[in-house]
């Protein structure tokens, strides 16, 4: 597999949210607006890329029996890094995302890539895989956040271009399920048309 297709597979073909249905909790919980979705996506991308690099370096040294706990410790370390960094530099976004930042550690995508890809591949492919998957995740979260923000308050990234109140339910909890359901429905329809 070429590096380019390794990088781009996360966007549509193996998109973690739309196709693999991984990492549903932050996907639904943080996408009340496009900017929140993007912040969450980028934080996850950082953890994903860095932990992929470290795990690909140390995978050979770890006995098979303690593989998963070791991976989780590496991931948790990077989550702590991004948690403290965001609390320091982006306090507003950090408090918006709240609990979901420490919860990156239990995001199935991160452990999934560590186990399925980084532990079996070299440093560079693992870095590219992490970045590609992370940006695919960011893309999905931003799209979902933008959809919900547009329908819920008539704005995208805070720029309001539809006057009026919008459909409040899309900013609330049920709207997250509805919006994601319909986005996956559209993706399925498009994928079927292509094949």
């Amino acid at each position, binding site marked *: 597999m070429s590096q380019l297709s390794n990088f781009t597979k996360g966007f549509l073909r193996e998109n973690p949210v739309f196709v693999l249905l991984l990492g549903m909790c932050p996907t639904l*919980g943080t996408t009340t607006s496009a900017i929140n979705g993007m912040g969450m996506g980028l934080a996850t991308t950082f953890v994903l890329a860095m932990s992929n690099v470290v795990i690909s370096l140390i995978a050979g040294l770890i006995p098979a029996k303690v593989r998963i706990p070791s991976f*989780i410790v590496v991931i*948790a370390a990077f989550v702590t890094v991004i948690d403290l960094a965001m609390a320091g530099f982006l306090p507003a976004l950090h408090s918006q995302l709240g609990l979901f930042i420490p919860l990156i550690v239990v995001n*199935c995508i991160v452990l999934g890539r560590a186990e399925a890809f980084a532990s079996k591949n070299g440093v560079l492919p693992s870095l590219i895989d992490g970045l590609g998957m992370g940006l695919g995740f960011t893309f999905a979260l931003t799209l979902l956040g933008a959809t919900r923000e547009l329908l819920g308050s008539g704005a995208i990234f805070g720029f309001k271009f539809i006057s009026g109140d919008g459909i409040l339910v899309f900013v609330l*909890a049920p709207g997250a*399920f509805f919006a994601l359901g319909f986005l*996956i429905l559209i993706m399925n329809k498009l994928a079927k048309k292509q094949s």
Partner: protein
Amino acid sequence: MEYIIIVISAIFVNNIVLSQFLGVCPFLGVSNKVQTSMGMAGAVTFVMTIATIVTYMLQNFILVPLGIGYMQTVAFILVIAALVQMVEIILKKVSPSLYQALGIFLPLITTNCAVLGVALLAVQKDLPLMQSVVFAIANAIGFGFALVTFAGIREALDLVDIPKPMRGAPIALLTAGILALAFMGFAGIV
């Protein structure tokens, strides 16, 4: 009275799955059969309660006195991973049929954000030990309640002719959305 408020709030008003979005992965993954989802709910209840007690001790007797609060995420997830391993070993011995039924999802409780989420929430809210335990049990019941209800709906949905692109994830998400809408009706009780 405090306990009653915690319980009602956790099960109905701020349901952990439908309004806080914790534990959505098993919610969508193991909810095809009522039987399986009950097993999952039981396993989660057990792990969540013990995890909350242990992380409470860890936070207040080790992390805070030593001034290493920033190790919270690392320490908590390790404790939970160890607990899940233990539950897996016990279940394998005590109830092999349940162990078979839960299959892949048992190790996945480690990466069930509901367990770590509730442990973190209890610490963040600064609840005393007894209230933390009640909080954990109530949230686990809320999780099980949502899971079993959803599984019941999905069992009935199996008999319905659904348009092709809607099968699988989309219809599950839309159903969950309607369920979440129903749970919004509880807002304002406490």
